[in-house]
């Protein structure tokens, strides 16, 4: 089921879709628990877990100390011994605190143990800039995770996808990072009431077109869609693809689109150098070189930490205008 097929009906904002996803994951799996900093009593600083403590009690919805290594370690140990941990790392920036647990333990344990361990772990974390929270509360670090064999990474940018991603992750026998977007917290969308999953590794084609493929993830799909609107007014038909899953990546959908449009533009909020977009561009160059009319374009953040000052942050974060500009440059129009 995709957003397009969902019956037009109940609307939920992104934050409440998160809550519902976690609630249903906990309801359907008695071995699932949720832990993180201020997730229980306070229902998270983002308010995304409100009501879960009341519903599931303190044995299943757990406030941890401020100990990110401990939180991921908890998930590794509990996951490897039969539970289904759902843990929260409040701001994605804080994964720096627990990179060993993520990279050397969570991601590799199964492989190192010759397939003898299973790590059904869900990590929820909030990414992204745009709220003037400066260099340590605004980053998009998904590339770090995608570069690590053993992890799956999904970056849902709609209310529908975020709920689906959480339930999918919770049912998945592998570690999955659900990288949420704080800039989208108030975004409403159709969200079915019953639990549902997303196909792992399947991209969303947000909008069809035949003149240019824009591949964007996270909050940037909304900017890319706006850019596509602008371009449509100029007679350019852009196809917008949200890979949604960055690991594993839906290469086929992207390549098929480029085969049709002959032009590709990759967009994300993370820094451009070494970003997920670099991988996507490389795959297009490898697999669809003959289809391309122009080199693959990229729009992403410049190579600096996220600045605090709103004027700088606005310059820093890509937007529809910049995407449209880059599209025009690739197409040699305007």
């Amino acid at each position, binding site marked *: 089921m995709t957003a397009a097929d969902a019956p037009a009906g109940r609307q939920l904002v992104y934050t409440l879709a998160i809550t519902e996803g976690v609630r249903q994951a906990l309801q359907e799996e008695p071995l699932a628990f949720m832990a993180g900093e201020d997730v229980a009593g306070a229902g998270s600083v983002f308010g995304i877990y409100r009501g879960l403590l009341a519903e599931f009690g303190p044995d299943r919805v757990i*406030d941890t100390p*401020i100990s990110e290594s401990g939180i991921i370690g908890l998930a590794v140990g509990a996951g490897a011994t039969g539970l289904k941990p759902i843990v929260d790392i409040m701001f994605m920036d804080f994964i720096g605190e627990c990179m060993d647990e993520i990279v050397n333990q969570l991601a590799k344990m199964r492989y190192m143990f010759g397939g003898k361990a299973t790590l059904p772990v869900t990590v929820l974390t909030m990414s992204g800039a745009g709220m003037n*929270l400066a260099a340590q509360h605004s980053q998009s670090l998904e590339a770090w995770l995608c570069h690590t064999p053993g992890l799956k990474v999904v970056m849902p940018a709609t209310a529908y996808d975020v709920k689906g991603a959480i339930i999918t992750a919770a049912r998945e026998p592998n570690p999955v990072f659900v990288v949420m977007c704080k800039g989208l917290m108030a975004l409403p969308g159709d969200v079915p009431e019953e639990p549902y999953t997303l196909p792992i590794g399947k991209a969303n084609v947000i909008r069809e077109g035949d003149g240019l493929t824009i591949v964007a993830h996270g909050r940037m799909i909304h900017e890319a869609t706006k850019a596509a609107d602008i371009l449509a007014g100029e007679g350019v038909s852009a196809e917008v693809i949200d890979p949604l899953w960055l690991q594993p990546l839906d290469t086929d959908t992207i390549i098929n689109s480029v085969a049709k449009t002959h032009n590709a533009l990759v967009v994300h909020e993370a820094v451009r150098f070494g970003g997920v977009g670099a991988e996507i561009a490389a795959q297009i160059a490898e697999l669809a070189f003959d289809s391309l009319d122009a080199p693959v374009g990229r729009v992403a953040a410049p190579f600096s930490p996220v600045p*605090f000052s*709103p004027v700088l942050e606005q310059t820093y974060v890509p937007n529809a205008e910049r995407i449209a500009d880059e599209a025009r440059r690739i197409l040699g129009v305007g």
Partner: protein
Amino acid sequence: MASSQASEPSAEVLKDLHYRMVRIRHFEEEAGKLMEQGKSPGALHLYIGEEAVASGVMVHLTDNDQITSTHRGHGHLVAKGGDFKKMYAELFGRETGYNKGRGGSMHISNVDAGMLGANGIVAAGPPIAVGAAFSNKYLARIEGRDRMDVAVPFFGDGATNEGAFHEAANMAAIWKLPVVFICENNGYGEFTPQAEHQAISDVADRAAGYGMPGVICDGMDAVAVWEAAGEAIERARTGGGPTLVECKTYRFVDHVGLRGIGLHYRTDEELEEWRARDPIPQHEQRMIEMGVMTAEEIQAVHDAVMADITESIEFAENSPLPDPADLLNDVYTPTAAS
């Protein structure tokens, strides 16, 4: 335990403690209002209620001594002599701010005066302070000085649950570095009470695990902090190694901003009991009784600070914004041409 410190605070010290506390209080109250009016972007973690801690410690430090701060960092910078103009300008994201608008509240710094930054990462400060103290000891050795500069990390009760705190404490202790760990125990990490985030009541107990003295003082009394910190700082300066000083304090406002996100996690009675111990009126009352300052003189201090604030906010509001063309400046230090 008796102190090695020679004397009780002079009238000058008492006035200095007061001045620093009053500057913090007014700076923060105005900053909080500006945030709630939407004039100060981002999130501000205010220091209101905890002024005695930063002030009591900072009176002992010079610009050569370093501090590391927290997300709740304005108070530390103000107490270390922060200039309101540069501070408000930073909160407003202006080019004239301490960090040229690049850092904002959570990274506000003044490296020239040894203020190595507020920090958005809980417990990031202690290891950095250990590095600064290592440097202080190293430089004192090669320069043949027997008194060292001291590095003082400030951190909360919640921060002592991060591995970084423990690693720093251990390194400081084994190398006898001139570090004074100042724990601002305000009873909560965000919305979680201390009893739910650690199984000890006194953070100072953690000192024993690293082989350094742990002391507790009343963080609502600037003189108590001044005494406790003074003794520890003097010991650190003269090669006696680190100390963990726990200051029992309280934040009068919410975790973020003045009113926060409206969660009810502290009782009104608790708030009232701590507010009754507000460090500023308590200190003022005492100075009046001792004849150190008159009520009029105290009022004049408040007025002067408020005037400075008004002028500084105006300065900040009229300051230029950073030029987006400069976005990539300062990512790296330019490499010297060979």
